[in-house]
């Protein structure tokens, strides 16, 4: 935040540094936000206007979806910052469990 509040009892917090850091964060957010809108448009175009085969479109928009998730987690939810190791661990474990389930369903139920 731009105000002088630091949420910290430590009098030696470097406000200049904080400000610079925040500005940098803000820039990343805006860049990734416009990227996300752009990727969404691309996905719509691929499905709606292009003349591509389904074999191309499905993997392609899935890939875009993965990129979007990464943006979401790392730029908007700050997962790259320190102190987010536990949520990251649980997210990836959940992902693993989910993927194994899907794999099993695709191979041994609906073979």
């Amino acid at each position: 935040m731009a105000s002088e509040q630091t949420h910290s009892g430590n009098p030696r917090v470097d406000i200049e540094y904080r400000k610079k850091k925040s500005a940098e964060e803000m820039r990343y957010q805006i860049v990734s936000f416009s990227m996300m809108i752009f990727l969404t448009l691309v996905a719509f175009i691929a499905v709606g206007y292009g003349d591509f085969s389904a074999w191309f479109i499905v993997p392609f928009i899935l890939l875009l979806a993965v990129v979007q998730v990464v943006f979401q987690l790392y730029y908007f939810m700050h997962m790259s910052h320190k102190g987010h190791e536990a949520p990251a661990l649980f997210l990836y474990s959940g992902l693993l469990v989910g993927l194994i389930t899907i794999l099993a369903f695709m191979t041994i139920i609906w073979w």
Partner: protein
Amino acid sequence: MSTYAQKKGFGATVWDYLTTVDHKKIAILYLIAGGLFFVLGGLEAMFIRIQLAVPNNDFVSAGLYNEILTMHGTTMIFLAAMPLLFGFMNAIMPLQIGARDVAFPFVNALGFWLFFFGGIFLNLSWFLGGAPDAGWTSYASLSMASEGHGIDFYALGLQISGAGTLMGGINFLVTIINMRAPGMTYMRMPLFTWSTFVASALILFAFPPLTVGLFLLIFDRMFGSNFFDVANGGNTVIWEHLFWIFGHPEVYILVLPAFGIFSEIFATFSRKRLFGYSSMVFATVLIGFLGFMVWAHHMFTTGLGPIANAIFAVATMAIAVPTGIKIFNWLFTMWGGSIKFTTPMLYAVAFIPSFVGGGVTGVMLASAAADYQYHDSYFVVAHFHYVIVGGVVFGLLAATHFYWPKMFGTMLNETLGKITFWLFLIGFHLTFFIQHFLGLMGMPRRIFTFLPNQGLDAGNLISTIGAFFMAIATLILLINIVITSVKNQKVGNDPWEDGRTLEWAIPSPPPFYNFKQLPLVRGLDPLWIEKMEGKKGMTPAEPLGDIHMPNNSFNPFMISLGLFVAAFGALYREDYNWGVLVLIVGMGITLLSMFVRSVKDDHGFHIHKEDLLNDDDKGGKA
């Protein structure tokens, strides 16, 4: 507002428990409710055994037998074993990490009331047209064909209580990650805390598949969808997978905390540091991880094909490795220790051979080809009771004796405790050991009677006699509890005298804020370290200051009550016109309560420093 120990009337005490958000009181609620359901499930087990005592018996009819069997399994797993473990986790884990409560006290209360109302709902089926009768696994091919509302009670009741369990698990995870006292690193956490952590992670990942499965079942049975209806393109095997993706981790959710309890008991009464602490932690995590890769070993005979069967067979056998590590570590903990055979220690020592027995049959069952012989026979019943009773129930009984003084401030009688132990141990092996052979001789699981002179008569009679031993043992335990509570002889901080971890550094029962000052943790077994340096208690990590506490709330009760009411609406929606109305009213109560919770600011209250100073006689020093 605060719970300073004034003498209170009966009504006030009840109100206090209905609204409490204190982890120690919620623990007692879990213990009482779980204990009641345990007695209920035990009665059902007795009815099963009485029916099977002699051939061609007609103590109960075939249909009623199915209901009793289903309710026995469902009650024992969801409403007895898990809540009792939750009780001990709530009571002890926050103390072990030096916290003043769990991370979300309100959610903790909500979790309990959801479990409680779900359990009551499920059991009301007995009075409202018949209990569920498709087994605790409720396979869709059976449950879709089951008439009446039994299965609906199962699906809706488990949905409600499952939501409570999920909340409880998440709460424990956040507590352990965020609320450890200064110096309490992950690798200094006691093993009961570690196993609570891993079991909670398993809950987090295992309950959603069950929720999904139950919703599909609810939709199919009550709202006309066709997920499991083969005639309409559905597939009943989907249920089997969803159920066991939950079901196998569930058995580790049950047994890992029991492992944790035994680890504490072995170290305490061998008066030695737990052997191989880091390998114990590693093994616990590894078991939790592998627990998700093996569910199809319950489905070898479903026809998954040889490749899938082989993969799941090998994965299952792999779990024996970390489990073996643990067994050896416990043995080495006792090795050379100066052992005290208290009641909890007796359970711990008896647990090792009993559980290994269940483990050996487990590996036998994991061999897919051999399982075609064992499957759905009494061999399986013997196997899972060896792990569940020999592991989980022994753990619960041990914890009852071990932690009773910490929770209630009185010691259970040791002589009666040892009588309970011996009766239970003998009864347990009498009941279940012979069932291995009944199974190998061809007695199928889930049958309501058998014919004479097929070699099954003697075995079944012995099994029933054993069950009576266990029933008597449980009765003696209850008598013990009553006697102890009436005598009410208070004990000090460390009644076993060999306490190693933080919970034994504070009074029994602890004051409602647990720690006057948060303790400074200097290593594994922090209290033991201080004792070895000749100190009486922990060194505080902070100056004495105001303590912030949450207010009590009736809201969790109301939120859960709303869902309980709504479940009746969903169930009777098609039979009566008022069904929809009840559904709406119930959801209304829940949503309104949640709304009130969101808009009403509740900042809790502070215990002031001066009051803490005056509270010295209660000795709540760090």
